[in-house]
């Protein structure tokens, strides 16, 4: 039976929300996630019309006959270096998720799942202090409504700027408001630390091997939690009144290069860009080396409530923190 879910992406500006979303389908297609391969998930972007039709169980004749939509445009923008999401609206993207393989009986209705994923500018959910942003008032209201009506939230935080005091206050208030909101539908909240590949830039071609070790991710997450004490407030969501489950994970939209296995950041390009084949333009140029890393995790967990080797609960990270602190291999 078809199940419909709304997932809201929130987090500070430039945290990597839009990039995470842009890398979602590629990550699923390449199987570059921590779920068992036999789950065989597949995800397909839908136009809003197809989504509404599927929602009403009036399956349109042909999902494949579909012109370039908003999601394809987002992917193209990402391939060309990205566009900062504006604050003039919140932006909805639609997908159909299926699991074609063997799924543990615990989670599943057989699907498919219809996902509505809401992306918005960081300035909307996490407004900077003292800045006048007149165009934006009704957008704030719209996002607040979407946050109360959604089943899952994916909170994207850049691992590299965790102590950025400019947004901690606003994010803390957002969490508090979520916790006390009486009418929310929230069932799952995933905190994803983005830009994960940057931790491994000095490891060259061994980078990927380390990144693929869940124990490394767990170590990084424990440390991140200790640096970001304000995230402790999320525990309130897991009390019986809170009604939601919280998970932590890491991801990299840039990922690690195919074949060479090093972090996919080209030091020779202006700005911070992925490696690309010279002379080629657009998506094809970046596609040759591009293997995003774990960008499917937050969305699959949000949709299925199913853990991967790279999703961790408070309890798992607490246990890790209580154990001996091994010497860090990174940072």
């Amino acid at each position, binding site marked *: 039976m078809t199940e419909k879910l709304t997932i809201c992406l929130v987090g500070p500006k430039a945290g990597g929300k839009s990039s995470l979303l842009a890398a979602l389908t590629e990550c699923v297609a390449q199987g570059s996630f921590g779920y068992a391969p036999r789950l065989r998930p597949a995800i397909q972007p839908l136009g809003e019309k197809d989504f509404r039709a599927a929602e009403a169980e009036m399956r349109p004749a042909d999902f494949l006959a579909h012109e370039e939509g908003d999601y394809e445009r987002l992917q193209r923008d990402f391939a*060309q270096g990205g*566009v900062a999401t*504006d604050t003039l*609206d919140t932006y909805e993207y639609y997908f159909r998720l299926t699991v074609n393989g063997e799924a543990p009986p615990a989670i599943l209705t057989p699907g498919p799942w219809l996902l509505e994923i809401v992306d918005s*500018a960081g300035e909307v959910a996490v407004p*900077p202090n003292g800045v006048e942003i007149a*165009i934006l008032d009704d957008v704030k209201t719209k996002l607040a409504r979407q946050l109360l009506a959604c089943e899952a939230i994916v909170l994207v935080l850049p691992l590299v700027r965790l102590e950025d005091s400019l947004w901690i206050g606003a994010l803390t208030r957002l969490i508090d408001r979520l916790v006390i909101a009486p009418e929310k539908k929230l069932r799952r909240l995933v905190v994803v630390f983005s830009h994960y590949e940057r931790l491994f830039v000095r490891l060259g071609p061994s980078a990927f091997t380390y990144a693929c070790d869940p124990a490394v991710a767990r170590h990084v997450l424990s440390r991140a939690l200790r640096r970001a004490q304000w995230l402790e407030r999320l525990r309130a969501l897991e009390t019986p009144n809170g009604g939601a489950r919280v998970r932590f994970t890491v991801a990299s939209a840039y990922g690690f290069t195919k074949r060479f296995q090093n972090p996919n950041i080209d030091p020779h390009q202006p*700005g911070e860009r992925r490696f690309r084949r010279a002379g080629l333009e657009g998506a094809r140029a970046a596609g040759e080396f591009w293997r995003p890393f774990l960008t499917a995790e937050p969305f699959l967990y949000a949709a299925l409530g199913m853990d991967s080797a790279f999703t961790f609960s408070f309890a798992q990270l607490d246990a890790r923190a209580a154990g001996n602190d091994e010497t860090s291999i990174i940072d």
Partner: protein
Amino acid sequence: MSSPVSANTSTAVEAAIDIRRLHYGKLVDATTGAVPSQSGYEVTRRSFDLDPSLVGHLSPARLIGRRRFDPDAIETSALRSGCFVARTTAYDATALMRARFRPEDGENGGARRHQQSSVWVVAFDDWRRFPAACLAIAAGHLRADPDLAAETAAVRLAETPSRWRFQNLDVDRARAVLLRDAWGCDMLEFFLDAASSDAAACLDFDARDFANERDFLAAAGFALQSLSSSYPRWRDVSVACGLAYPAPGVCLRYSPDHALPGALSDAA
């Protein structure tokens, strides 16, 4: 501030318009042109007496009449300077906008791009009386340049409107110029055809018709100046340059990309 607009005619009369401003985008560093990490999207400049209820109508997406404004809205040859749109919105206001996407690490950078728009607001009645002047002033002075982080909010958000003086062009004179050239007859015929319907319509020009945007805007100015103030669809009139699709209403559009060899073979 004032600037003469060339309309060297003996029948010209002295006139003036007030222009109010709204800039949306990100503040930048004056020397590098890069967006400092703490700045995000905001209204970076606003005239102190701009009607707050009007502001929501001045978002780039609304002005181009689409759900959202993204880089695809801008033709390739206009990517650097941005697209231009003039049209009448709510509250008897006419907006003239230039909008584009620029790299966050400076004009020639390679980083993520952000939206930057500059909107001028003139009274609808001024637009209807002095369209040639409005377009000529915009052609020369309306740029989607970001504001500087070093300038205080108190200054940026409390600007006084600027007054522009010019020699106005009268209707007969405009009409005489217009009827000399094929483009003029086309434009006039287009507006006459549109008068008796309420459908959206667009008349396109490209680089074979006009060498550059400024020439096109001068031509569009002549055409609009030659419409009488009783023209029934004045509120629907729009002018666009470098926009990948027609602006809403009765639109004169300059799309230089269409004359590029690539575009021609694509169409084939």
